[in-house]
C-alpha cells in the first residue's frame, strides 16, 4: 500500500462515529453553556477513539474523563482540577486552562481522529 493510500485510509471517520461524537453535544452539560462545546473537543474524540468503557455520552462526567485521560496518557492533571473532587459540579472558571489541555490531548489521537478534530476546530466559528 502506498503512503498516499495509507494516508487516505486513516482520514475516514464513519457516520456512526460522527453520530457518537455529536451525541455528546446534545447533553444538558453542553446545551446549557455552549462555550463548553469549544472546551471539550479532542477529549470527547479520545473517549470514542480509545473506546473507553464507562465514558460514553450516556455516562459523561467531565472531571472523571479528564482524570481517566491523564491516567492513560501519563499526563499531569490541569492545575485548576488538582483539588477538585470527582462529584464536584463543573466550574466554568476552569475552561480557559482546560482548553489548553484539550489541545494537548488532540496530539494523542489516532490519525483519522486528529484530522477530524482539526477540521472541527477550523469549521467552528467559521461556517
Amino acid at each position: 500500500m502506498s503512503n498516499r493510500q495509507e494516508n487516505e485510509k486513516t482520514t475516514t471517520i464513519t457516520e456512526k462515529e460522527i453520530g457518537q461524537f455529536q451525541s455528546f453535544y446534545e447533553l444538558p452539560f453542553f446545551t446549557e453553556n455552549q462555550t463548553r462545546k469549544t472546551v471539550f473537543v479532542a477529549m470527547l474524540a479520545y473517549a470514542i477513539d480509545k473506546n473507553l468503557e464507562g465514558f460514553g455520552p450516556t455516562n459523561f462526567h467531565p472531571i472523571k474523563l479528564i482524570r481517566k485521560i491523564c491516567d492513560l496518557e501519563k499526563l499531569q492533571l490541569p492545575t485548576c482540577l488538582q483539588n477538585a473532587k470527582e462529584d464536584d459540579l463543573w466550574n466554568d472558571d476552569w475552561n480557559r486552562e482546560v482548553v489548553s489541555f484539550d489541545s494537548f490531548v488532540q496530539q494523542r489521537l489516532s490519525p483519522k481522529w486528529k484530522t477530524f478534530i482539526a477540521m472541527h476546530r477550523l469549521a467552528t466559528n467559521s461556517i
Partner: protein
Amino acid sequence: MLTPNTLKYLRLIYAAVQLEDLTLVDELKNKLKEEISQSPNFSEDDKLALENAVQFIGPETAKFTVPRICGNKPEVTINSEGTLTITVEESEIHRMVVGMFSQEALAQFQKFVKDLTGTGLSEDAQEIHNPERGIQISLRSPEPNSLTNYQERVIQLIKEPAFQNYLAQDNYLAAEIARLSNSDNPDQQRIQELNTQRENLLRQYLRNLQS
C-alpha cells in the same frame, strides 16, 4: 484561486474581521502575499495572479472557509443544445463537515445552485435541471476514502499543532464572547477583556509565524 495555506489565512483574517481590526487584516494579507512570493511552487505569472487575488480578500471572503474545500473534481460540459452541465463531487472533507454541523455547510452549495438555476436544491436531491436557463448541476457522491493532493496538503497545514492550539483558544474566546453578548445583562467589561485576549492571541500567533 486558493493556495493550500490561504485557508489558514482566511480563518485568521476572519478572526481579525470579527475583532474589527483592519490593521491586522492588512498585516495578515501582507504576510500571505509574502509567503506566496517566496514559494518555489508557483511560476512568476501565478504569483502575480495570486498576489492580486489576495488584494480582494475582504470580510465576506473570510467567512465560510471550510466549504471552499468541499467541492472536488468539477466537470463542466456543454451539449449541442447549449445546456451547460456542472458536476461537482462532494469531497470527503465536506461529508465530515456536514456530518458535524448538519446541513449548514451544504447550505453554501445550495446558494451556489440557487444563484445559477433560480431554484433551490432539495435536501436529498443530487441533481437539478433548469431548461429555461439551460443549466444542469449535479452533485456526485465521493469515491470512498478519496482525497485530492490539494486536500491532503490543506489537511497537513490545518493539522499543524501551533495552528490547532490557536484555533482551540480562539474558538473558546469567540464562543464565550458570543455567550456573554447574548445574555440578558451583558458584562461589557468582561467582553472587552476577552476581545483583548483574542486580539493578543492572534497577534502572538502572527509574530510566531514571522519568526
